[in-house]
């Protein structure tokens, strides 16, 4: 337990994770595993792992390695909380000790939120529909794209993100003037009918419907425009955001308290030795 909670173990696990993340950044290049990572973003990680992931096994192997690294870090975090942080907490103890413990515990909740986002609920990103097309959603729901209104120049519609940023300027693309009209129904009975705009999602039952952008289904017929939609539901999203917000606030308070508390006793001793 002492070894598991040691700071050397912490540094080792952090270094391993950093190397693994650096490897991930390298593997994400389009000519390496870029397409597999794009696929990873389209659905829940659990669905991806049980489905298309193994068409290109290096991507899921990298992901499992990342999970292993996070697991080791969590083991260290848990051991450190149990053996170092919690035993120091007593009534009347210094605020900084409580804050340090809380920052570590809330980080655990944030990581659990990330984990939940990968396995719970439903996720379909890059759902491409043209007007008149429909798709089935969980819970017997059906989503139909009824109409697309795209007033901007359609000739640049299929540009990749980095190139599009130079073309889709605020004068060339008017976000509120471009929208899609969708209908959500269950067994023929309409549940919701309305417009979706970029950055203005709608919630139908528990599903969040989002318009991510537009696309031209054929390079030859760029005047025909379809919608890139996302349908996402995660029961723990609110909990994740609350925990993350609390984490930010706790970090900020910890920074202020550390500032006011001055040097730690260990560093004081060190300075006295140096000055002496």
């Amino acid at each position, binding site marked *: 337990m002492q070894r598991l909670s040691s700071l050397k173990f912490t540094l080792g696990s952090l270094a391993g994770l950093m190397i693994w*993340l650096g490897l991930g950044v390298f593997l994400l290049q389009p000519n390496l595993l870029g397409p597999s990572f794009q696929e990873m973003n389209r659905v829940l990680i659990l669905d991806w792992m049980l489905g298309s992931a193994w068409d290109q096994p290096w991507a899921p192997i990298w992901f499992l390695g990342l999970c292993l690294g996070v697991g080791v870090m969590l083991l260290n975090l848990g051991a450190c909380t149990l053996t170092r942080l919690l035993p120091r907490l007593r009534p009347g103890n210094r605020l900084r000790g409580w804050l340090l413990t809380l920052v570590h515990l809330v980080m655990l909740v944030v990581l659990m939120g990330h984990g939940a986002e990968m396995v719970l609920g439903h996720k379909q990103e890059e759902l491409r529909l043209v007007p008149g097309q429909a798709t089935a959603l969980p819970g017997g729901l059906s989503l139909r794209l009824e109409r697309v209104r795209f007033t901007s120049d359609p000739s640049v519609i299929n540009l990749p993100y980095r190139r599009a940023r130079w073309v889709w300027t605020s004068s060339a693309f008017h976000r509120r003037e471009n929208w899609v009209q969708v209908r959500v129904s269950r067994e023929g009975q309409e549940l919701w009918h309305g417009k979706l705009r970029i950055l203005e999602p709608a919630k139908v039952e528990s599903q969040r419907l989002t318009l991510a952008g537009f696309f031209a289904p054929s390079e030859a017929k760029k005047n025909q425009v379809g919608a890139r939609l996302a349908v996402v539901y995660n029961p723990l999203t609110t909990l994740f955001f609350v925990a993350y917000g609390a984490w930010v606030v706790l970090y900020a308070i910890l920074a202020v308290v550390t500032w006011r508390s001055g040097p730690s006793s260990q560093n004081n001793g060190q300075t006295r030795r140096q000055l002496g």
Partner: protein
Amino acid sequence: MLTSLLDWFYWSCLLATAAAGALAWWGTGRWWRVAGWLVLALALGQAVTTALILHRPPLAGAYESALVFLLWLSALVLLPCGDRTAQRRLAALGWWTGCVLMALFLVGSRRFYPDWYMYQYIWSRLFFSLRMAANATWLYAALAALASLAVDAAGRHCLLRWSRNFLLVGTAVFLAGEFVGFTWRMQWMGDYWCWNANFLEATLFFLLVTAAAHLPPAWAARPRLRAAAQAVPGLLIVTLFMTHMFMEP
């Protein structure tokens, strides 16, 4: 008119940062502080002129990032750290770093990023602004750690503590930026997380700073090792960030 004014501010910042750094490191008296306020005024003028040209705050791209970093550094180095010699060393390093950032554009292009429609959205503006503020704060923390190698024991202790405090402040600002970024991504794409290079790099940055804050006591007691540990995150993060910006198509 505004473009010419920006040119003037750019060259003034380049020269003033070099001169202020030299005054702080080698000069006597209090002229270095006057030079520091002048650098801050020029850096502010450069940022405001850019905002007037773009009709938005400077948010992304190599030159916009560099001028925001310079503005943050110019303000932070004027904060009193509690030790006069240490303060002068830190200020000099801060201004010279600002000078290097500006000098990059003697070779690189000072082009602005386009007026992407997403930059009108408050969450995206907040995200980019907080990310740059966090990077600048970490860079300042790194410079404080480096400056600790050039002062006596009391100054070293003061600067290492100062550096640690700003690592924490930078992390709080960074996490606030991540919170805002998650919100933006969820509103735009449906989910708050994405498996792409930007998200992985951001996580890597956080782990790098976290590692610097978890040195074993025996290592933290060695000033050079502690200074290196606290300097690496800010220097590496800003180098990677600027490289990324210069490599943008």
